[in-house]
């Protein structure tokens, strides 16, 4: 077992490389640790590897080389299939996909938000209360009986967020969370993520939009177009480094 780079990390990849279909490089030799309670922004141009890294951190894509560690243990595809470890990992790490259509797959909003809790054995009045509460957090209570094709893009995004928040994950992975949201929903989400961070939750989000990053993130990592991490540090330092942003195609 490879020693952890950062003993306090909740999630960590070490020299992670991933290629789609074994050919198209999406991550190249990436090492990154996610510390508890932080709000980490993954910045980079489209196709730089941010979304792939989030999927790797959620144990959804097996690495071609390198390691993934979660809560102090090395995570392998076999371990994720383990009857005890798999559900425990899923309960502690939540992932909101960039494309809400991918995530909103159930016949109604209620069933969508209830999907995760049901898989984890929550049912009855507890389930009902949890679902309504999660939708309330995102101002989406009125959508509870709607079908996915009765939702706008922004509404689907909010439902997708609620469907993950309902599991109260310790680590929240968000892929382009602000994309497609109107200004009011955007403000609401930024406030919610800040509240979650203050409550001790760990938030990792990918974005190619620098607006709002300095308000939300406590640390940032910038991806280059060669699928490697170019720099890590204070968000305000990174977003004011014009040369770095130009190299990352973010300026």
């Amino acid at each position, binding site marked *: 077992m490879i020693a952890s780079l950062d003993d306090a990390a909740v999630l960590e990849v070490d020299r992670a490389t991933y290629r789609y279909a074994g050919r198209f490089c999406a991550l190249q030799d990436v090492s990154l640790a996610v510390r508890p309670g932080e709000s980490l922004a993954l910045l980079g141009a489209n196709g730089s590897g941010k979304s792939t890294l989030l999927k790797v951190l959620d144990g959804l894509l097996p690495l071609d080389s390198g390691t993934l560690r979660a809560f102090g243990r090395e995570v392998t595809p076999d371990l994720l299939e383990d009857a005890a470890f798999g559900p425990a990992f899923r309960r502690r790490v939540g992932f909101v996909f960039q494309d809400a259509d*991918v*995530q909103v*797959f*159930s016949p109604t909003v209620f*069933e969508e938000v209830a999907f995760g809790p*049901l898989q984890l054995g929550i049912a009855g009045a507890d389930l009902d209360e949890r679902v309504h509460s999660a939708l309330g957090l995102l101002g989406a209570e009125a959508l509870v009986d709607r*079908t996915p094709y009765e939702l706008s893009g922004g509404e689907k995004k909010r439902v997708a967020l609620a469907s993950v928040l309902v*599991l109260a994950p310790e680590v929240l992975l968000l892929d382009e969370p602000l994309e497609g949201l109107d200004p009011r929903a955007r403000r609401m989400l930024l406030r919610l993520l800040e509240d979650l961070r203050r409550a001790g939750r760990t938030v990792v989000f990918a974005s190619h939009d620098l607006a709002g990053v300095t308000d939300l993130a406590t640390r940032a990592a910038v991806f280059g177009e060669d699928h490697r991490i170019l720099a890590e540090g204070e968000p305000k330092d990174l977003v004011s480094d014009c040369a770095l942003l130009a190299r990352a195609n973010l300026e």
Partner: protein
Amino acid sequence: MSLPSWLIAAPQAAPLPPPAGRAAHSFLARSLPGAAEALRRDLFSGQIASRPGFLQRLDPRVKALVGLAFLVAAGLAGHPLTLGVLCLAAPLLALASRVPLGAFAARVYLTVPAFTAILVAPATTNWVRAGTDALVIARFSGPLHLGPLTLPDHLSLTTQGLASAGTLLTRVTASVSIAALFILTTRWTRALGAFRQLRVPALLVAVLGMAYRYLFLLLTTATDMVAARRSRTVAPTTRRSGRREGRRFAGLAAGALLTKAHRLSEDVSLAMISRGFDGDFRAIPEPALRAGNWIALVAGLALAAGVVGGDRLLG
């Protein structure tokens, strides 16, 4: 970056040409609006299912079971009067359930019976089924020989063939009416819940629900692809070149959609795994049936049994 000269050149203020007849559009371009219309109709049927009507008040499980019983009854019934009563009762139930007769007729009378009539038409003739002539269509100089087959010297509709076709047509109409009433008065989401409760495997029901959901998504994508192509079709096309290009585009669009569907299915699978799905689908349990629905269930099943019994008495 400087703009290329072809982009800088001021557009010529030429007048728009006069109309020159309808442009040729591909099969895909002509068919997809129809599919989109089907989508719109489906959404409309969701609104019908929300109306306060007779069948809408019944629990979907009761409707499914009673509907199934009546489908069996329609299958067993053979007397024209019994089948006629079933065919007449359906639009009356539609009216009682605030289903617009136009929407009901479009689903029941315009398609399935017409196709059934085409299928059974040969069986009404003496060439397929011998019987008493009801109407002679053509007479020939003698028996016709088609290879090993020898056909009668005339072509006619037979009484027996017409009676069998009539029975089949009314039976199909009655069965389709029953299915249409269930579909039009039950929200799809509640129908799925009813199927789960009726012991249809939860995973199968989930797959049905997802297929319905993503069919619409891919249909919308396909419609957008056709619209995007049409918005960039700036050169006039002849009917022949339009058809050739249309076929080429249809092939490319089908490939692109297949790729998109494949990627979508992979991502949906990952989204399910991410939220704890381990292959064992757990669904929300349906509430217990209330007394009123139990009464409706017993009455409905008794009525269906009565239809079969009455049909037997009629002979």
